[in-house]
């Protein structure tokens, strides 16, 4: 059984072609798998291994290093509350407590309807807007308890534009064929790029 859909298989090829070594596509392909499935399955890792020319164990090795790759199903919306210094100073602890009681789960848990997973997270590069959180890696700033409740209602009633977990960028890079230079593999190119030599200081 193939893991990737036909459309995603094509995308995977397009991604791999951009790198001098296909193994570099490993993380982008894991993201693509998570986008398709919401989490990273064994089938996904096996197929990615094949695509980039390595073993499933190597893919698991990489996959397990990174926080965002989920090895079990998670909620449709993953809510990450920042608990690092600036947010902690501005009330992240209270926000987390409120979130736990509103959702009825502890940090790390998921609601039984599969809608929400709640996690404590580290600095989200929004420290001036503390306390902050992310829903599927999209920020909410200076979040109060009331705003949190409102957010949950909006998410539950689909009154928002946050894509489901696994979808990160909704815009994909596409390099037009006629402008694509193509990768420069380390073992093939031995001379300087043309613009470094042809100018001869004449410009």
């Amino acid at each position, binding site marked *: 059984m193939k893991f990737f859909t036909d459309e995603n298989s094509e995308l995977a090829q397009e991604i791999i072609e951009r790198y001098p070594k296909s193994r570099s596509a490993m993380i982008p392909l894991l993201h693509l798998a998570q986008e398709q499935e919401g989490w990273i399955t064994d089938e996904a890792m096996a197929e990615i291994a094949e695509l*980039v020319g390595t073993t499933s164990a190597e893919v698991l090795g990489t996959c397990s*290093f990174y926080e965002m790759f989920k090895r079990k199903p998670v909620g449709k919306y993953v809510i990450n509350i920042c608990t*690092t210094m600036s947010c902690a100073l501005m009330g992240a602890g209270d926000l987390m407590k409120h979130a736990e009681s509103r959702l009825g789960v502890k940090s790390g848990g998921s609601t039984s309807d599969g809608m929400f997973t709640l996690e404590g997270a*580290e600095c989200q590069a929004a420290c*001036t807007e503390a306390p902050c959180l992310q829903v599927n890696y999209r920020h909410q700033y200076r979040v109060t308890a009331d705003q949190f409740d409102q957010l949950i209602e909006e998410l539950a009633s689909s009154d928002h534009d946050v894509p489901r977990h696994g979808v990160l960028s909704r815009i994909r890079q596409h390099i037009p064929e006629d402008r694509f230079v193509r990768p420069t593999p380390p073992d093939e190119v031995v001379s300087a790029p043309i613009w470094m030599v042809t100018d001869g200081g004449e410009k």
Partner: protein
Amino acid sequence: MNEMTGTPIPHAPGFIANETPRIVTSRFDYEDSHTLTRYEATGGYEGLKKALQRTPEEVHNEVRDATLLGRGGAGFPAGVKWGFCPPEVWPRYLVVNGDESEPGTYKDRLLMELDPHQLIEGCLIACYAVGLSQCFLYIRGEMAVAQERVAQALNDAYAAGYIGKNIQDSDFSVDIVLHWGAGAYVVGEETALIESLEGNRGMPRLKPPYFPASIGLYGQPTIVNNVETLSNLPWILEHGAEAFTSIGTESSPGTRMVAVSGHVKRPGVYEIVNGTTTFRDLLYGSDMCGGIRDDNQLKAFVPGGGSAPWFTADQLDLPFEASQVGPQGSMLGSGAIMVMDETTDIPAAALTLTKFYAHESCGKCVPCREGGTWLEQILRRVVEGRGTARDLELLIEVGETICPGDFPHAAVPSKGIEAVPFPYRMTTICFVGPSAFAPIHSALTLFREEFEAKVAGNDHPTMIEVAVDV
């Protein structure tokens, strides 16, 4: 309090525009600052066009003359680093460090979301100058909006002939490939970034020998630069190194973006004049943070991102100048200040940082992997009132296995404590291990009485909830 000046920009959450020259944030006021149309209408891609009229060497020299210090943390001059590529070893690559995740740091994300073309133009100028034949733009995984903005900008710039084959009909050709991470702080370290880009676990490599400029991506010469560093290049090429160095000081010219968070009246991201602006200007200036919240007293601040030893009011008059901050016991790092007022529970505040670095250890070095975890556990029991006096010694002993010898800290004139200058010695490959110790060491040195009160069981209640499990 005085009237506040400076303008918050609603579509740039946190950014506050003020009167200082605006080199990298000049377009932030426009709501469509991220579009190619706005970029071209406001002088965009002019720096690249100027660069293409000159030889790569001339462009490199212009950047070297500008003394553009790296904005990612280490503050190394970009033009000098570019010169470290061994001659005649090809291909060379550019890796853009957009992994911004140092506690307190918030600027690269703004630059990617609000002015992605400026970053792209900066990448192109660097590639042209140093002969880099492919660029990988590595954005932190947890930044979905930045990824969307940069992806759109790349697609538009390819279509408009700014990226790809024969850029602007010249013989300069380069691809920029968008890549993103998946959540691991240590990947921001440049050699770990390269490991990650090769599809591996993001574990740092030993330097030497693995200085990226000589042995980087796929073993080839590789320039790693921060997003803000590269975002300065279009301006430098358009206006010249001389205009750049006329702002700020000779050793720290230009501007830099600084995020001030925590207990100030107006937390925000400011573009400040480098070298001359002081911490007092930033924290108390009416065009900036406007003072401490509720007019409280300042207790302490972290001057350069979570890794930096702490300062107190005694250091407020230091300027943003590495050569002055270093001898006083800390560093400017990634342009991030976290402010604690008099109500702050200092041991608990230190724990919010130590648990970060302990959690983010990649596990490659024993002192970091084991030491970080121990530091967190010991400090946690002290904070929770389960500690003993012996624990305070233990914290230092464990810290010394990571950083042997004197650890840098600020002076405390009232206690007769003199500053120990930056940097420190370390037993680890990268700075994650030492960074788990830095907040503990600073807090214990500057506010020992608070720890003693905790272990004696007569302290004030913890003001900060520190998550147990993240």
